[in-house]
């Protein structure tokens, strides 16, 4: 709570009224050079333990926003708060999953998954035991000694996910993680992700350009406008996930969400 008191006064009201938001984005703007304005005055809240997707037309700055939250690129204006602290760079409470996997090509699966822990100086035995657990959790048991070039795209992304889970960050930032894998692998991966998150209790911020993916996975969907990206709408589809992954795709709430998003995004297609 002491950290909350250190915030600017105009924000204290928002902070004290139910404060389950682990990540808050306040009035973020970002331009590249003088020409391209990627984000304009974006404010968002990400509830703890929920999966939020950022969805919008291509070039709307969703990946830029994700990387600003990650602390990988600085914003021109505005702040990002994680657990009440201003983000000034990458931090251990956030882990990133990359669109192109970003695995170390010279290291095997075990070392790749343990990489975040290795950077934190964890002893070899300890980090490899932890990594082995997460490799099992993402369904890659038996592939510990394989190298990235021996794996399919879907398997590489499982390695990327295991690496993000292994560092035990509160927030996992995923940048179009399934866009480079085929449709069937993607569906399986989406189902597995939901099951994993039910156990791991992470907050996930997920960038995608797939409407179905957003509706299927999300507790909260943020729709961004075309460049310069601003928040067009925040949806909270109340999808009943208790009947398993298959039932979700037939849930009326899921179908409604897909319709609503499409109606909204359609206007940006010229």
């Amino acid at each position: 709570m002491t950290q909350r008191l250190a915030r600017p006064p105009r924000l204290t009201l928002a902070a004290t009224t139910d404060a389950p938001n682990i990540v808050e984005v306040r009035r973020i703007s970002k331009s590249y050079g003088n020409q391209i304005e990627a984000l304009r005055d974006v404010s968002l809240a990400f509830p703890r333990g929920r999966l939020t997707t950022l969805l919008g037309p291509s070039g709307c700055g969703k990946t830029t926003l994700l990387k600003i939250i990650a602390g990988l690129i600085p914003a021109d204006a505005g702040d990002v708060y994680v657990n009440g602290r201003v983000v000034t760079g990458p931090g251990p409470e956030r882990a990133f999953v990359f669109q192109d996997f970003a695995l170390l090509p010279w290291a095997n699966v075990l070392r790749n998954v343990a990489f975040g822990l290795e950077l934190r100086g964890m002893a070899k035995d300890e980090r490899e035991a932890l990594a082995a657990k997460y490799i099992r959790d993402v369904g890659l048991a038996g592939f510990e000694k394989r190298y990235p070039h021996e794996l399919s795209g879907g398997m590489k992304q499982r390695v990327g996910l295991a690496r993000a889970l292994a560092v035990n960050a509160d927030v996992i930032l995923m940048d179009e993680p399934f866009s480079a894998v085929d449709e069937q692998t993607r569906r399986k991966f989406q189902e597995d992700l939901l099951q994993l998150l039910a156990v791991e209790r992470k907050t996930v911020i997920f960038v995608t350009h797939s409407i179905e993916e957003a509706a299927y996975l999300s507790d909260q969907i943020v729709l961004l406008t075309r460049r310069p990206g601003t928040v067009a709408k925040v949806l909270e589809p109340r999808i009943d996930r208790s009947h398993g992954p298959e039932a979700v795709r037939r849930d009326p709430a899921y179908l409604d969400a897909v319709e609503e998003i499409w109606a909204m995004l359609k206007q940006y297609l010229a």
Partner: protein
Amino acid sequence: MRILGYRLPMPAALLLWGALWEIAGRLELVPILPPLSDVLIAMGQLVHTGQFWAGARTTLASFATGMGLAIAIGIPLGMLMGRIAMADRLLGMWVNLFASAPLTALVPVLMILFGLGSTTVVVTVTLFAVWIIALDTAAGMKHVNPSLLEMVRSFGASRWVIYGRILPLAALPEILAGIRLGLIRGVKGVVIGQLLVSIVGFGELFELYSRNFLMPEFWALTLFIFAFALVASEAIGWIEHRIEAYASSRS
């Protein structure tokens, strides 16, 4: 190579050229070309002389030291050029110039600076090899996948880890290619350096053989050096080949 529909392996081609050399030598077309058999006999005799081994030791030591320096200077220099645009603008021109300049002309100047000894030879090797290593390393830096660096940063890697471990490994294929090319230039450097200084290592022997017109010995020594250059560059090539799989999967 194919002759009359038969695929001939590399050694067969060598045999053919060897036979031609033997015939040309026996015909005594030019006085500096003895038959290959004489050269081979001279090679056999040479390895039994202390003179040869003393020369080989000196030469190898100069070569190894010079190459070590070239690698130790070339990789950081290339990393600087590849990562920092300012450094590339300041240094790129000079590195490119030196990489293609006829550096042999500078060796007499080096002799004045470093004396008529092994130091000059070491510096010559470094001077011959360092530029191509720097250029290839710089090219490698520019090929490093940007998201790999973002990944490393997102997990909290320090600059030290990024520059000391991640970048060199990520650019390893290009760095190795640079070292292989540098190695070949380094062999040139050690021979030219020793020839010009002419009182150390193989340079002394070359001087002795050519002055006394001992052509079989002269060619024997030349073949040894060729063989060394070939083996050394093949060794690096072998390492390059081993990491080929990862090099192709980087992007």
